[in-house]
Protein backbone atom coordinates (compact mmCIF):
# COMPACT_ATOMS: atom_id res chain seq x y z
CA UNK A 1 0.00 0.00 0.00
CA UNK A 2 1.35 3.39 -0.95
CA UNK A 3 -1.31 5.52 0.71
CA UNK A 4 -4.28 5.26 3.05
CA UNK A 5 -7.17 7.62 2.42
CA UNK A 6 -9.81 8.04 5.10
CA UNK A 7 -13.09 9.86 4.52
CA UNK A 8 -15.74 10.67 7.05
CA UNK A 9 -18.40 13.11 8.05
CA UNK A 10 -20.78 13.36 11.01
CA UNK A 11 -19.70 10.96 13.76
CA UNK A 12 -16.35 10.08 12.23
CA UNK A 13 -13.97 12.32 14.13
CA UNK A 14 -13.66 10.13 17.23
CA UNK A 15 -13.31 7.06 15.01
CA UNK A 16 -10.40 8.64 13.19
CA UNK A 17 -8.77 9.47 16.53
CA UNK A 18 -9.16 5.86 17.62
CA UNK A 19 -7.69 4.57 14.38
CA UNK A 20 -4.67 6.82 14.79
CA UNK A 21 -4.21 5.77 18.41
CA UNK A 22 -4.46 2.13 17.43
CA UNK A 23 -1.93 2.21 14.62
CA UNK A 24 1.29 0.39 15.27
CA UNK A 25 4.27 2.79 15.46
CA UNK A 26 5.86 0.92 12.60
CA UNK A 27 3.11 1.91 10.21
CA UNK A 28 4.42 4.82 8.14
CA UNK A 29 2.22 4.70 5.04
CA UNK A 30 1.12 8.26 4.21
CA UNK A 31 -2.44 8.97 5.34
CA UNK A 32 -4.88 11.49 3.92
CA UNK A 33 -7.93 12.40 5.97
CA UNK A 34 -10.92 14.03 4.29
CA UNK A 35 -13.37 15.36 6.81
CA UNK A 36 -16.33 17.55 5.99
CA UNK A 37 -15.59 20.80 7.76
CA UNK A 38 -17.26 24.11 8.34
CA UNK A 39 -16.63 26.90 5.90
CA UNK A 40 -14.61 29.92 7.01
CA UNK A 41 -13.93 28.41 10.41
CA UNK A 42 -10.38 27.62 11.39
CA UNK A 43 -10.76 24.57 13.56
CA UNK A 44 -7.98 22.94 15.51
CA UNK A 45 -8.46 19.62 13.76
CA UNK A 46 -4.76 19.13 13.09
CA UNK A 47 -3.83 19.74 16.72
CA UNK A 48 -6.34 17.16 17.92
CA UNK A 49 -5.15 14.55 15.48
CA UNK A 50 -1.52 15.24 16.33
CA UNK A 51 -2.13 14.52 20.00
CA UNK A 52 -3.09 10.97 19.14
CA UNK A 53 -0.74 10.05 16.37
CA UNK A 54 2.88 9.14 15.78
CA UNK A 55 2.49 10.66 12.31
CA UNK A 56 3.44 14.24 11.56
CA UNK A 57 0.02 15.81 11.06
CA UNK A 58 -0.31 18.75 8.69
CA UNK A 59 -2.77 20.48 6.44
CA UNK A 60 -2.12 19.62 2.79
CA UNK A 61 -0.41 22.38 0.82
CA UNK A 62 -0.65 22.89 -2.90
CA UNK A 63 2.06 21.00 -4.87
CA UNK A 64 3.76 19.53 -1.80
CA UNK A 65 5.14 16.04 -2.12
CA UNK A 66 3.55 13.23 -0.15
CA UNK A 67 5.93 11.77 2.41
CA UNK A 68 6.02 8.67 4.58
CA UNK A 69 5.06 9.17 8.18
CA UNK A 70 2.90 12.17 7.30
CA UNK A 71 -0.82 12.59 7.72
CA UNK A 72 -2.47 15.22 5.57
CA UNK A 73 -5.79 16.90 6.26
CA UNK A 74 -7.66 18.80 3.55
CA UNK A 75 -8.21 22.53 4.08
CA UNK A 76 -11.80 23.76 4.27
CA UNK A 77 -13.20 25.03 0.94
CA UNK A 78 -10.79 23.03 -1.21
CA UNK A 79 -10.80 19.64 -2.86
CA UNK A 80 -7.61 17.61 -2.76
CA UNK A 81 -6.15 15.92 -5.85
CA UNK A 82 -3.05 13.79 -6.43
CA UNK A 83 -0.60 14.35 -9.29
CA UNK A 84 1.24 11.45 -10.91
CA UNK A 85 4.50 12.66 -9.35
CA UNK A 86 2.88 12.32 -5.89
CA UNK A 87 2.45 16.03 -5.41
CA UNK A 88 -0.77 17.22 -3.84
CA UNK A 89 -2.95 19.75 -5.65
CA UNK A 90 -5.71 21.88 -4.19
CA UNK A 91 -8.79 22.70 -6.21
CA UNK A 92 -11.44 25.30 -5.45
CA UNK A 93 -14.04 24.12 -7.97
CA UNK A 94 -17.73 23.35 -7.39
CA UNK A 95 -18.98 21.60 -4.27
CA UNK A 96 -19.57 17.92 -4.92
CA UNK A 97 -22.32 16.26 -2.88
CA UNK A 98 -22.74 19.63 -1.16
CA UNK A 99 -19.20 19.26 0.11
CA UNK A 100 -15.79 20.83 -0.40
CA UNK A 101 -13.62 18.99 0.40
CA UNK A 102 -15.52 16.12 -1.14
CA UNK A 103 -14.49 12.57 -0.32
CA UNK A 104 -15.49 11.39 -3.79
CA UNK A 105 -13.17 13.87 -5.47
CA UNK A 106 -10.15 12.78 -3.45
CA UNK A 107 -10.90 9.05 -3.61
CA UNK A 108 -11.29 9.27 -7.39
CA UNK A 109 -8.20 11.36 -7.98
CA UNK A 110 -5.94 9.23 -5.76
CA UNK A 111 -7.30 6.00 -7.16
CA UNK A 112 -6.68 7.16 -10.72
CA UNK A 113 -3.01 7.68 -9.90
CA UNK A 114 -2.36 4.89 -7.42
CA UNK A 115 -4.67 2.14 -8.75
CA UNK A 116 -4.18 -0.98 -6.54
CA UNK A 117 -1.68 0.80 -4.32
CA UNK A 118 -4.17 2.65 -2.14
CA UNK A 119 -6.65 1.84 0.60
CA UNK A 120 -9.84 3.84 0.96
CA UNK A 121 -11.73 3.82 4.23
CA UNK A 122 -15.21 5.32 4.53
CA UNK A 123 -16.58 6.03 7.99
CA UNK A 124 -19.70 7.35 9.65
CA UNK A 125 -21.55 10.19 7.96
CA UNK A 126 -24.98 11.43 6.99
CA UNK A 127 -24.69 12.03 3.25
CA UNK A 128 -23.68 10.05 0.19
CA UNK A 129 -20.26 11.52 -0.40
CA UNK A 130 -17.50 8.92 -0.81
CA UNK A 131 -19.61 6.08 -2.18
CA UNK A 132 -18.75 6.67 -5.81
CA UNK A 133 -15.07 7.21 -5.08
CA UNK A 134 -14.76 4.12 -2.92
CA UNK A 135 -16.30 2.06 -5.68
CA UNK A 136 -13.62 3.32 -8.06
CA UNK A 137 -10.90 2.42 -5.57
CA UNK A 138 -12.27 -1.12 -5.39
CA UNK A 139 -12.63 -1.40 -9.17
CA UNK A 140 -9.07 -0.20 -9.66
CA UNK A 141 -7.84 -3.03 -7.45
CA UNK A 142 -7.23 -0.99 -4.32
CA UNK A 143 -8.50 -1.95 -0.90
CA UNK A 144 -11.88 -0.55 0.07
CA UNK A 145 -13.12 -0.61 3.64
CA UNK A 146 -16.45 0.59 5.02
CA UNK A 147 -17.17 1.08 8.69
CA UNK A 148 -19.72 -1.43 9.98
CA UNK A 149 -23.16 0.22 9.68
CA UNK A 150 -24.20 -1.14 13.08
CA UNK A 151 -21.31 0.61 14.71
CA UNK A 152 -21.27 3.89 12.76
CA UNK A 153 -23.00 6.71 14.58
CA UNK A 154 -24.52 7.83 11.26
CA UNK A 155 -24.92 4.98 8.81
CA UNK A 156 -26.10 6.87 5.71
CA UNK A 157 -22.60 7.15 4.31
CA UNK A 158 -21.43 3.56 4.81
CA UNK A 159 -24.80 2.28 3.61
CA UNK A 160 -24.64 4.39 0.45
CA UNK A 161 -21.23 2.90 -0.33
CA UNK A 162 -22.40 -0.66 0.14
CA UNK A 163 -25.58 -0.03 -1.86
CA UNK A 164 -23.67 0.80 -5.04
CA UNK A 165 -20.92 -1.79 -4.54
CA UNK A 166 -21.36 -4.79 -2.30
CA UNK A 167 -17.85 -6.21 -2.19
CA UNK A 168 -16.27 -3.66 0.13
CA UNK A 169 -14.74 -5.03 3.33
CA UNK A 170 -17.20 -4.08 6.07
CA UNK A 171 -15.29 -3.79 9.33
CA UNK A 172 -15.73 -2.57 12.89
CA UNK A 173 -13.32 -0.01 14.27
CA UNK A 174 -11.18 -2.66 15.92
CA UNK A 175 -10.92 -4.65 12.76
CA UNK A 176 -10.09 -1.60 10.70
CA UNK A 177 -7.15 -0.98 13.00
CA UNK A 178 -6.11 -4.62 12.91
CA UNK A 179 -6.34 -4.67 9.15
CA UNK A 180 -4.21 -1.55 8.73
CA UNK A 181 -1.59 -2.82 11.16
CA UNK A 182 -1.31 -6.17 9.45
CA UNK A 183 -1.24 -5.03 5.86
CA UNK A 184 0.76 -1.84 6.01
CA UNK A 185 3.14 -3.25 8.58
CA UNK A 186 6.62 -1.88 8.04
CA UNK A 187 5.82 -0.45 4.64
Amino acid at each position, binding site marked *: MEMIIIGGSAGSFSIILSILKGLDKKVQTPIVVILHRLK*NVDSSLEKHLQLHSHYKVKEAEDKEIVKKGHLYTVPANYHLLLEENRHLSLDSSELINYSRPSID*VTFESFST*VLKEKCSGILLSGSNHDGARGLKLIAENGGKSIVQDCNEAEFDVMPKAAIRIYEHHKVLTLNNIIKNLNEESYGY
Partner: protein
Amino acid sequence: MIEFNDLKEIVFLIEKQYGYDFSDYSRASMLRRINRFMEISNMGSVVDLKYELINNSVNFNTFLNEIVVNVSEFFRDPSFFKSLKTNVFPYLESYPKINIWSAGCSFGEETYSLAILLKELDLLHKSRLYATDISSNAIEKSKKGIYSNKSFKEYSNNYFSCGGKESLNEYFISDGKKSIINSDLKKEILFTRHNLVADGVFKECQLILCRNVLIYFNEDLQDKVLNLFYDSLPIHGFLALGKKETLRFSSVFDKFKEIDSTEKIYQKIK
Protein backbone atom coordinates in the same frame (compact mmCIF):
# COMPACT_ATOMS: atom_id res chain seq x y z
CA MET B 1 -13.32 8.66 -19.58
CA ILE B 2 -9.77 9.53 -20.48
CA GLU B 3 -6.58 8.50 -18.68
CA PHE B 4 -3.40 10.38 -17.84
CA ASN B 5 -1.66 9.07 -20.92
CA ASP B 6 -4.35 10.57 -23.17
CA LEU B 7 -3.75 14.04 -21.75
CA LYS B 8 -0.69 14.94 -23.76
CA GLU B 9 -2.42 14.36 -27.06
CA ILE B 10 -5.52 16.30 -26.01
CA VAL B 11 -3.43 19.23 -24.80
CA PHE B 12 -1.50 19.17 -28.06
CA LEU B 13 -4.71 19.12 -30.07
CA ILE B 14 -6.17 22.07 -28.16
CA GLU B 15 -3.01 24.07 -28.71
CA LYS B 16 -2.92 23.33 -32.43
CA GLN B 17 -6.61 23.87 -33.03
CA TYR B 18 -7.37 26.78 -30.70
CA GLY B 19 -4.05 28.24 -29.58
CA TYR B 20 -4.49 27.68 -25.85
CA ASP B 21 -1.51 26.16 -24.08
CA PHE B 22 -2.53 23.95 -21.15
CA SER B 23 0.68 21.95 -21.02
CA ASP B 24 1.75 23.44 -17.67
CA TYR B 25 -1.60 23.14 -15.94
CA SER B 26 -2.02 20.68 -13.08
CA ARG B 27 -2.47 17.31 -14.78
CA ALA B 28 -4.64 15.99 -11.97
CA SER B 29 -7.02 18.89 -12.33
CA MET B 30 -7.01 18.76 -16.15
CA LEU B 31 -7.84 15.08 -16.10
CA ARG B 32 -10.67 15.61 -13.64
CA ARG B 33 -12.12 18.59 -15.53
CA ILE B 34 -11.97 16.86 -18.91
CA ASN B 35 -13.63 13.74 -17.53
CA ARG B 36 -16.26 15.90 -15.89
CA PHE B 37 -16.92 17.64 -19.19
CA MET B 38 -17.19 14.29 -20.96
CA GLU B 39 -19.60 12.99 -18.35
CA ILE B 40 -21.82 16.07 -18.58
CA SER B 41 -21.86 15.93 -22.36
CA ASN B 42 -22.29 12.17 -22.55
CA MET B 43 -19.03 11.50 -24.27
CA GLY B 44 -17.68 8.01 -23.81
CA SER B 45 -14.22 7.73 -25.22
CA VAL B 46 -11.16 9.76 -26.02
CA VAL B 47 -12.02 9.31 -29.68
CA ASP B 48 -15.36 11.09 -29.18
CA LEU B 49 -13.60 13.90 -27.39
CA LYS B 50 -11.01 14.35 -30.11
CA TYR B 51 -13.70 14.29 -32.76
CA GLU B 52 -15.59 17.05 -30.95
CA LEU B 53 -12.51 19.17 -30.48
CA ILE B 54 -11.60 18.93 -34.14
CA ASN B 55 -15.02 19.21 -35.71
CA ASN B 56 -17.13 21.24 -33.35
CA SER B 57 -15.48 24.50 -32.46
CA VAL B 58 -18.77 25.82 -31.05
CA ASN B 59 -18.57 23.28 -28.30
CA PHE B 60 -15.00 24.30 -27.53
CA ASN B 61 -16.24 27.26 -25.50
CA THR B 62 -18.25 24.99 -23.26
CA PHE B 63 -15.23 22.76 -22.97
CA LEU B 64 -12.95 25.67 -22.10
CA ASN B 65 -15.36 26.94 -19.44
CA GLU B 66 -15.39 23.52 -17.82
CA ILE B 67 -11.59 23.22 -17.90
CA VAL B 68 -10.68 26.58 -16.37
CA VAL B 69 -12.91 26.40 -13.25
CA ASN B 70 -14.87 29.65 -13.12
CA VAL B 71 -16.08 29.02 -9.57
CA SER B 72 -16.06 32.08 -7.33
CA GLU B 73 -18.03 33.99 -4.70
CA PHE B 74 -18.61 37.52 -3.55
CA PHE B 75 -16.21 38.26 -0.69
CA ARG B 76 -14.72 34.77 -0.84
CA ASP B 77 -12.66 34.37 2.35
CA PRO B 78 -14.06 37.36 4.25
CA SER B 79 -10.98 37.49 6.45
CA PHE B 80 -8.94 38.28 3.36
CA PHE B 81 -11.03 41.32 2.50
CA LYS B 82 -10.83 42.42 6.10
CA SER B 83 -7.08 42.25 5.92
CA LEU B 84 -7.05 44.34 2.73
CA LYS B 85 -8.98 46.97 4.63
CA THR B 86 -6.59 47.09 7.56
CA ASN B 87 -3.25 46.34 5.91
CA VAL B 88 -3.36 47.50 2.31
CA PHE B 89 -5.89 50.23 1.61
CA PRO B 90 -4.62 52.65 4.28
CA TYR B 91 -1.31 52.50 2.45
CA LEU B 92 -2.78 52.90 -1.04
CA GLU B 93 -4.92 55.82 0.12
CA SER B 94 -1.97 58.15 -0.23
CA TYR B 95 -1.70 57.64 -3.98
CA PRO B 96 -3.56 60.09 -6.23
CA LYS B 97 -4.65 57.19 -8.44
CA ILE B 98 -4.94 53.55 -7.40
CA ASN B 99 -4.54 50.86 -10.04
CA ILE B 100 -5.68 47.36 -9.16
CA TRP B 101 -5.42 44.20 -11.23
CA SER B 102 -7.68 41.28 -10.49
CA ALA B 103 -6.19 38.41 -12.53
CA GLY B 104 -8.40 35.36 -13.04
CA CYS B 105 -11.50 37.36 -12.16
CA SER B 106 -13.98 34.62 -13.08
CA PHE B 107 -17.50 36.13 -13.43
CA GLY B 108 -16.49 39.34 -11.65
CA GLU B 109 -17.46 38.41 -8.11
CA GLU B 110 -14.05 39.27 -6.70
CA THR B 111 -13.74 42.49 -8.69
CA TYR B 112 -17.17 43.81 -7.70
CA SER B 113 -16.47 42.85 -4.09
CA LEU B 114 -13.37 45.04 -4.29
CA ALA B 115 -15.34 47.87 -5.85
CA ILE B 116 -17.88 47.71 -3.02
CA LEU B 117 -15.09 47.82 -0.44
CA LEU B 118 -13.41 50.75 -2.17
CA LYS B 119 -16.69 52.59 -2.38
CA GLU B 120 -17.35 52.15 1.32
CA LEU B 121 -13.87 53.49 2.02
CA ASP B 122 -14.53 56.41 -0.32
CA LEU B 123 -11.66 55.35 -2.57
CA LEU B 124 -13.52 54.09 -5.60
CA HIS B 125 -13.58 57.43 -7.41
CA LYS B 126 -9.78 57.49 -7.59
CA SER B 127 -9.36 53.79 -8.30
CA ARG B 128 -9.11 51.94 -11.58
CA LEU B 129 -9.77 48.20 -11.54
CA TYR B 130 -8.45 46.01 -14.32
CA ALA B 131 -10.07 42.60 -14.27
CA THR B 132 -8.81 39.90 -16.58
CA ASP B 133 -9.48 36.28 -17.34
CA ILE B 134 -8.50 33.72 -19.96
CA SER B 135 -12.12 32.94 -20.70
CA SER B 136 -14.06 35.31 -22.95
CA ASN B 137 -17.27 33.89 -21.57
CA ALA B 138 -16.16 34.88 -18.08
CA ILE B 139 -15.35 38.40 -19.29
CA GLU B 140 -18.74 38.76 -20.98
CA LYS B 141 -20.52 37.61 -17.84
CA SER B 142 -18.41 39.88 -15.68
CA LYS B 143 -19.34 42.88 -17.79
CA LYS B 144 -23.03 42.07 -17.46
CA GLY B 145 -22.75 41.62 -13.71
CA ILE B 146 -25.85 39.46 -13.36
CA TYR B 147 -25.92 36.80 -10.65
CA SER B 148 -28.43 34.20 -9.61
CA ASN B 149 -30.06 34.86 -6.24
CA LYS B 150 -29.39 31.30 -5.12
CA SER B 151 -26.13 32.06 -3.37
CA PHE B 152 -27.01 35.52 -2.17
CA LYS B 153 -27.50 34.59 1.42
CA GLU B 154 -23.99 33.20 1.51
CA TYR B 155 -22.59 36.29 -0.20
CA SER B 156 -24.41 38.43 2.29
CA ASN B 157 -22.91 36.49 5.18
CA ASN B 158 -19.47 36.88 3.65
CA TYR B 159 -20.05 40.60 3.27
CA PHE B 160 -21.01 41.00 6.91
CA SER B 161 -18.13 38.84 8.12
CA CYS B 162 -15.69 41.18 6.48
CA GLY B 163 -17.22 44.15 8.15
CA GLY B 164 -19.75 45.34 5.57
CA LYS B 165 -21.89 48.14 6.92
CA GLU B 166 -24.76 48.32 4.46
CA SER B 167 -26.87 45.52 3.16
CA LEU B 168 -25.34 43.79 0.16
CA ASN B 169 -28.69 44.25 -1.63
CA GLU B 170 -28.00 47.98 -1.75
CA TYR B 171 -25.50 47.31 -4.49
CA PHE B 172 -27.83 45.32 -6.70
CA ILE B 173 -31.15 45.56 -8.44
CA SER B 174 -32.96 42.26 -8.02
CA ASP B 175 -35.98 40.43 -9.29
CA GLY B 176 -37.16 37.08 -7.99
CA LYS B 177 -34.35 35.13 -9.60
CA LYS B 178 -31.44 37.37 -10.46
CA SER B 179 -29.57 40.39 -9.24
CA ILE B 180 -27.70 42.87 -11.35
CA ILE B 181 -24.86 44.95 -9.97
CA ASN B 182 -25.41 48.72 -9.83
CA SER B 183 -23.89 50.45 -12.81
CA ASP B 184 -22.03 53.04 -10.74
CA LEU B 185 -19.83 50.20 -9.46
CA LYS B 186 -18.93 49.30 -13.04
CA LYS B 187 -17.64 52.71 -13.98
CA GLU B 188 -14.10 52.26 -12.73
CA ILE B 189 -13.71 48.66 -13.90
CA LEU B 190 -12.24 47.46 -17.16
CA PHE B 191 -12.93 43.79 -17.88
CA THR B 192 -10.76 42.34 -20.58
CA ARG B 193 -9.24 39.06 -21.77
CA HIS B 194 -5.70 38.28 -20.68
CA ASN B 195 -4.00 34.91 -20.63
CA LEU B 196 -1.46 34.55 -17.83
CA VAL B 197 0.27 31.75 -19.72
CA ALA B 198 0.87 33.60 -22.96
CA ASP B 199 0.46 37.34 -22.40
CA GLY B 200 2.96 39.70 -20.81
CA VAL B 201 2.81 42.53 -18.29
CA PHE B 202 -0.66 43.97 -18.42
CA LYS B 203 -0.36 47.30 -16.67
CA GLU B 204 1.57 48.59 -13.69
CA CYS B 205 -0.70 48.23 -10.68
CA GLN B 206 -0.16 48.93 -6.99
CA LEU B 207 -2.24 45.95 -6.00
CA ILE B 208 -2.54 42.64 -7.83
CA LEU B 209 -5.01 39.97 -6.80
CA CYS B 210 -4.60 36.51 -8.23
CA ARG B 211 -6.50 34.13 -6.03
CA ASN B 212 -7.22 30.47 -6.63
CA VAL B 213 -5.69 30.50 -10.08
CA LEU B 214 -2.14 29.32 -9.39
CA ILE B 215 -3.35 26.06 -7.82
CA TYR B 216 -4.38 24.99 -11.32
CA PHE B 217 -0.82 25.43 -12.62
CA ASN B 218 2.25 23.26 -12.12
CA GLU B 219 5.24 24.63 -10.21
CA ASP B 220 7.03 25.95 -13.30
CA LEU B 221 4.06 27.92 -14.53
CA GLN B 222 3.33 29.19 -11.02
CA ASP B 223 6.83 30.57 -10.88
CA LYS B 224 6.61 32.13 -14.31
CA VAL B 225 3.35 33.89 -13.45
CA LEU B 226 4.68 35.11 -10.11
CA ASN B 227 7.58 36.68 -12.00
CA LEU B 228 5.07 38.37 -14.28
CA PHE B 229 3.36 39.83 -11.22
CA TYR B 230 6.68 40.93 -9.82
CA ASP B 231 7.36 42.78 -13.07
CA SER B 232 3.91 44.38 -12.99
CA LEU B 233 4.29 45.84 -9.49
CA PRO B 234 6.00 49.08 -8.55
CA ILE B 235 8.22 48.96 -5.52
CA HIS B 236 5.99 48.72 -2.40
CA GLY B 237 3.15 47.33 -4.50
CA PHE B 238 1.03 44.52 -3.06
CA LEU B 239 0.37 41.01 -4.27
CA ALA B 240 -2.51 38.93 -2.90
CA LEU B 241 -2.77 35.20 -3.55
CA GLY B 242 -5.46 32.68 -2.64
CA LYS B 243 -5.72 31.53 0.95
CA LYS B 244 -3.86 28.30 0.18
CA GLU B 245 -1.35 29.65 -2.31
CA THR B 246 2.10 30.89 -1.39
CA LEU B 247 5.15 32.74 -2.64
CA ARG B 248 7.35 30.68 -0.38
CA PHE B 249 8.66 28.28 -3.01
CA SER B 250 9.01 30.79 -5.82
CA SER B 251 12.12 32.49 -7.17
CA VAL B 252 10.77 35.94 -6.23
CA PHE B 253 10.11 35.10 -2.59
CA ASP B 254 12.95 37.19 -1.17
CA LYS B 255 11.86 40.22 -3.16
CA PHE B 256 8.68 40.42 -1.14
CA LYS B 257 7.77 41.07 2.47
CA GLU B 258 4.96 39.09 4.04
CA ILE B 259 2.20 41.48 5.09
CA ASP B 260 -0.33 38.88 6.19
CA SER B 261 0.86 35.29 6.24
CA THR B 262 -2.60 33.77 6.72
CA GLU B 263 -4.30 35.79 4.02
CA LYS B 264 -1.28 35.58 1.69
CA ILE B 265 -0.71 39.27 1.15
CA TYR B 266 2.80 40.30 0.12
CA GLN B 267 4.55 43.58 -0.57
CA LYS B 268 7.31 44.06 -3.13
CA ILE B 269 10.38 45.40 -1.37
CA LYS B 270 13.07 45.16 -4.03
